[in-house]
């Protein structure tokens, strides 16, 4: 147990021995092997003695309980041994960048733990700490505007940010109560969380420092006053002192945005600095694009209806410079009312809304996420209430040559390039996708031809033979004719029948020749290389096959939907 904790904390993992049989004393049974060096390294860890102390403490405590020595229990509990993981963090991540690189799991874990109910599964303090740290992290992301991609998956929401040049991806579950599984060892998770909270705390501290923000985060004066004025009556206790209020805020859901509000003022300074540095560098274009993305929602005012995931949307919108608010009764920290005339987008996730204001778009939440991933404000028409939403694509997929590209992605890329579809929106994308789609098929087929020589060979055979036969047949027919004439006894009328000019496709012939050369060369490959080659080709073929399958499926689907539409039209 304590060895496991040590391994987790110190980041010791098993190794695959080079000679498994030798190490395993001749047996091939599956076993895990650690390096002796690693285990020795564990023994030198000062935290081992702390663990020992803790064990002793537990033993004493148990004894005291057993003897009903309550004062003893009190006393022991007061002197509960504690330990810190600071030095381990420093040791595992000697540089800050290392720590950032390894932040994915830490964030995912903290975000998960922060959503746990405060009952049973782990210490309340851990949950609170996780919540605090994740909120700090979100605040940092907002104020540094470093969010890049968001993806609504069926598992949860993926976020990807670029922090000091490192891409950090994390996933948060949807806001539901957890159905705690029984076959999960929460102790392991708790140990990891212990490490991750320490790591994330230090990382947050450092990150806040880089932005000259106060750590632990505080609201700036202006927004604080505003908030106070608004919520004093509701949250009387929280106005007692500044720190108390802040901590109370961090325990509630609203503080993300509340803090955000204040940080916006500071924000102006930092990007400008970053901009100066960027000018020095030659990558102006990328910089420009990024800055454009960073200020994607600048000047837009959002209002969240109560059924949308508030935290995620608020976080995302604030990260791209938008202003966001919600109903006052939903959560504290709302900044303006529904009735505000300057609201540009009202995010709703229900079929219809009662009172609609004219000068704002009523859209579904997917628009926000799709716009972020597309790095531009998408046309809102497809995201209106009650409209069938366009597919939500993963921003993490980078299509390479020969991969299947969904038509929606093609369309998006066209939009990004600045091509405006001339026709009304609903028709043009269809055509556009179909064209690209058919191209795609052709392309892949070509590849297949190149790859699948065997099949091609057979095909060729099939093609060639009949032609030969035909020739033969013709020849024979000619001969028969000649013979007949001869038989008729008349002088052989030498007749030059015009020969057919075979249409010779030179390019095709050359290609075929090349293909054959290749085939012959492949025959001469060494066994080992042939194996490798076959494997590579198999992988390629599989890829092509999968892409084709997807394309075919899509085509079938599109055809089905168009016929449906036609039928409906006819009926109407």
């Amino acid at each position, binding site marked *: 147990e304590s060895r*496991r904790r040590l391994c*987790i904390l110190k980041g*010791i*993992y*098993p*190794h*695959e021995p080079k000679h498994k049989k030798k190490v395993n004393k001749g047996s091939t049974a599956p076993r*895990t*092997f650690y390096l002796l060096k690693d285990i020795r*390294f564990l023994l030198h860890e000062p935290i081992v003695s702390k663990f020992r102390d803790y064990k002793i403490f537990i033993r004493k405590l148990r004894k005291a309980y057993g003897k009903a020595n309550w004062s003893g229990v009190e006393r022991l509990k007061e002197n509960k041994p504690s330990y810190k993981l600071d030095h381990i963090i420093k040791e595992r991540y*000697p*540089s*800050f960048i290392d*720590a950032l690189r390894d932040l*994915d*799991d830490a964030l*995912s874990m903290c975000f*998960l733990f922060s959503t746990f109910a405060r009952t049973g599964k782990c210490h309340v303090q851990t949950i609170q*700490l996780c919540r605090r740290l994740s909120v700090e992290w979100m605040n940092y992301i907002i104020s540094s505007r470093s969010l890049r991609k968001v*993806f609504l*998956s*069926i598992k949860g929401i993926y976020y990807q940010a670029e922090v000091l040049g490192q891409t950090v*991806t994390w996933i948060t*579950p*949807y806001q539901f*109560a957890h*159905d*705690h*599984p029984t076959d999960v060892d929460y102790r*392991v*998770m708790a140990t*990891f969380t212990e490490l991750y909270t*320490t790591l994330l*705390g*230090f990382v947050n*501290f*450092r990150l806040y*420092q880089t932005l000259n923000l106060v750590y632990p985060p505080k609201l700036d004066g202006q927004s604080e006053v505003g908030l106070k004025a608004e919520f004093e009556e509701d949250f009387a206790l929280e106005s007692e002192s500044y720190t108390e209020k802040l901590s109370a805020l961090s325990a509630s859901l609203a503080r993300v945005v509340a803090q955000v509000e204040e940080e916006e003022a500071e924000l102006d300074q930092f990007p400008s600095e970053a901009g100066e540095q960027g000018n020095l560098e030659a990558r102006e274009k990328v910089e420009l694009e990024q800055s454009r993305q960073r200020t994607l929602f600048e000047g837009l005012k959002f209002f969240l209806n109560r059924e949308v995931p508030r935290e995620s949307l608020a976080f995302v919108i604030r990260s791209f410079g938008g202003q966001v608010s919600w109903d006052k009764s939903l959560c504290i920290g709302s900044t303006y009312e529904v009735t505000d005339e300057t609201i540009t987008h009202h995010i709703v*996730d229900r079929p219809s809304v009662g009172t609609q204001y004219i000068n704002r778009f009523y859209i*579904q939440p997917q628009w926000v996420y799709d716009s972020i991933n597309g790095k531009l404000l998408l046309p809102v028409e497809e995201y209106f209430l009650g409209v069938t*939403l366009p*597919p*939500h*694509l*993963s921003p*993490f*997929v980078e299509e390479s040559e020969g991969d299947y590209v969904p038509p929606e992605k093609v369309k998006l890329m066209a939009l990004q390039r600045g091509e405006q579809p001339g026709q009304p929106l609903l028709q043009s994308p269809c055509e556009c996708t179909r064209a690209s789609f058919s191209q795609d098929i052709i392309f892949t087929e070509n590849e297949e031809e190149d790859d699948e020589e065997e099949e091609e060979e057979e095909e060729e055979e099939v093609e060639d033979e009949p032609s030969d036969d035909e020739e033969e047949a013709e020849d024979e027919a000619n001969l028969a004719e000649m013979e007949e004439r001869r038989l008729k006894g008349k002088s052989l009328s030498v007749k030059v029948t015009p020969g057919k000019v075979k249409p010779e496709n030179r390019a095709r012939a050359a290609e075929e*020749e090349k293909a*054959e050369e290749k085939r*012959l*060369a*492949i*025959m*001469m*490959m060494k066994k080992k290389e042939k194996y*490798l*080659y076959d494997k*590579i*080709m198999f992988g390629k073929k599989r890829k092509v096959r999968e892409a084709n399958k997807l394309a075919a499926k899509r085509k079938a*689907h599109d055809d089905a939907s168009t016929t449906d539409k036609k039928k409906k039209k006819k009926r109407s």
Partner: protein
Amino acid sequence: MVCCGTASSRALSCFHPAALSETLGSCGTQSEQEEDDERRGLADIRNTVGNIPMEWYKDYPHIGYDLEGKKIFKPIRNKDELDEFLDKMENPDYWRTVQNKMTGEDIRLSDEQVDLPAIDFFSSEVMIHPVTNRPRDKRSFIPSLIEKEKARSPCSLPIFTVNHETVTASVSHHQVGKLVHAIKMGWIKPRRPKETTPQYYDLWAKEDPNSIVGRHSMHVPAPKMRLPGHEESYNPPPEYLLSEEERLAWAQQDPEDRKLSYLPQKFPYLRAVPAYSRFIHERFERCLDLYLCPRQRKMRVNVNPEDLIPKLPKPKDLQPFPTTQSLVYRGHSSLVRTISVSPSGQWLVSGSDDCTVRFWEVCTARCLKTVEVGGAVKCVAWNPNPSICLVAISYDDKVLLMNPSLGDRLISSATDQLISSYEEPEEEREQPVQWSVSEGEEHERGHRLVLNHPKVVKQVTWHGKGDYMACVMPDNSSTLQVLIHQVSKRRTQNPFRKSKGLVQCVSFHPVRPYFFVATQRYVRVYNLIKQELTKKLMANCKWISSMAVHPAGDNVICGSYDSRLAWFDLDLSTKPYKVLRHHKKALRSVAYHRHYPLFASGSDDGNVIVCHGMVYNDLLQNPLIVPVKVLKGHSITHDLGVLDVSFHPTQPWVFSSGADATVRLFT
């Protein structure tokens, strides 16, 4: 009462307040009991239960028995708490009212009784017995370390860690004074509440990149989680959703084999998306992976597959070689087992399972002659001597020597003459084979000599000079497998005394007196003059089917039924110089071209593969083998494709006979 009686004054070091009150209480009860005794003398209401705990009678209506054995009932008192309280508040004598436990009556103590002095059982007299007989602890003699410490420096007193009780128990007046002083002076502060929230600071403030050493160079960082694709979206494009069969297949798969750990789903709007039930599972599995999975750096081979293909000279540069099928010789009605080309290259003979031998003109594909023989033709071989026009045909257990009388009449008549000029030797020799001369009608048809063998003859092959002929009668048990005939002398001999396995085929060396015998797995090379085995070639295959010797004589190719072709360089080694696995099925025959550096192999997959096999005169240079053409044309019938291949003696043409009853010429 007993305890009270024994109580006596002791020199106790201190009076504990609780103990004091106890003694006082007991004094009270004692006086009460004495009064009881007095009263007993008057009224005879005595409780006879004796000195027992009175709560034993708690649940009964009576409280004991009097002398006559009658129950003494408890006085009826229905005082509840409230009455008790009111009594306490209002009754001025409440304090002097006690309850007699033996009778349950309330007794008001008189002034006299109240004033009764307590019996001083801690008297000044020293009794012989102590209150307790326990010997004194050692610690009462020796001052503890903590006390010593306290005595020395009261300000550094670690009061927060000391057991509170021991402190109070053993602190002396002096020490107490010191502690009070320390508290007054602010040296000792009250217990600070413990810090529960972790403190963060700039851990990487003094970050020195040079200090990163040792372990970190070896560290393998954990791979990041795979990023989700389109199929994980809550609203994926329709093509990523699984169809019904796919979903079934997914459900039937083992969870470990699944390509996706979840089923892609489509939700019409965001609010319909439920919680993902395996979220915690997946995080947990990731945790397990992080600390339980062995990490290993794997070098990914990132090869361009094109680079793996060997660079060979282009077939175009290696011309001439046959490239296209130009003629088909049709006429046989069953599979054509064997073909042979005349040394002039003008005629072709083919033998088939339809018991005929056909002679063709090569250039026109005309069948010039059809000869019926008595059985399925196993092998035909044209005499390689250009001055002799003779064909050896084997069917059943006979070998027929035939003069087709094609081409030059002179040669044909010379051949006839040669055969008829044979003179019977004086002494009759014992021969394993019967030589008989054909006459009459058969002679007219071209038959010249018939050799009756004891067993079925599978292969006939000529020596280059055209006088000797070797026949193979495969039989594992017999020594009589190979026979060498001399046509001019009509002599036959069995060159081998021992059987070395099932002989598949034999061949003469084109120039030197060597003889190649291929058994199932080996090719043995015999020197015919010295009559000894010179080499044994290991073919590395299961079953040799055919063999051909290079016209220069230093290289041999062997085709085998396990679809390999082995090229032996006799100067190099007894192992194959190269094994070619070009065919997909068993090889049936192989052949060398007499002049061009070409060899061909025919296989059951219906293909003839022509390879360029250049043998250099320079001994240091290994032969160059390049496949140049795959010739297709024969269709596969009864799982058989090409049965025999043979090169034209002068042109770069190749003939092939197949199971589809045709012979084809590729030029």
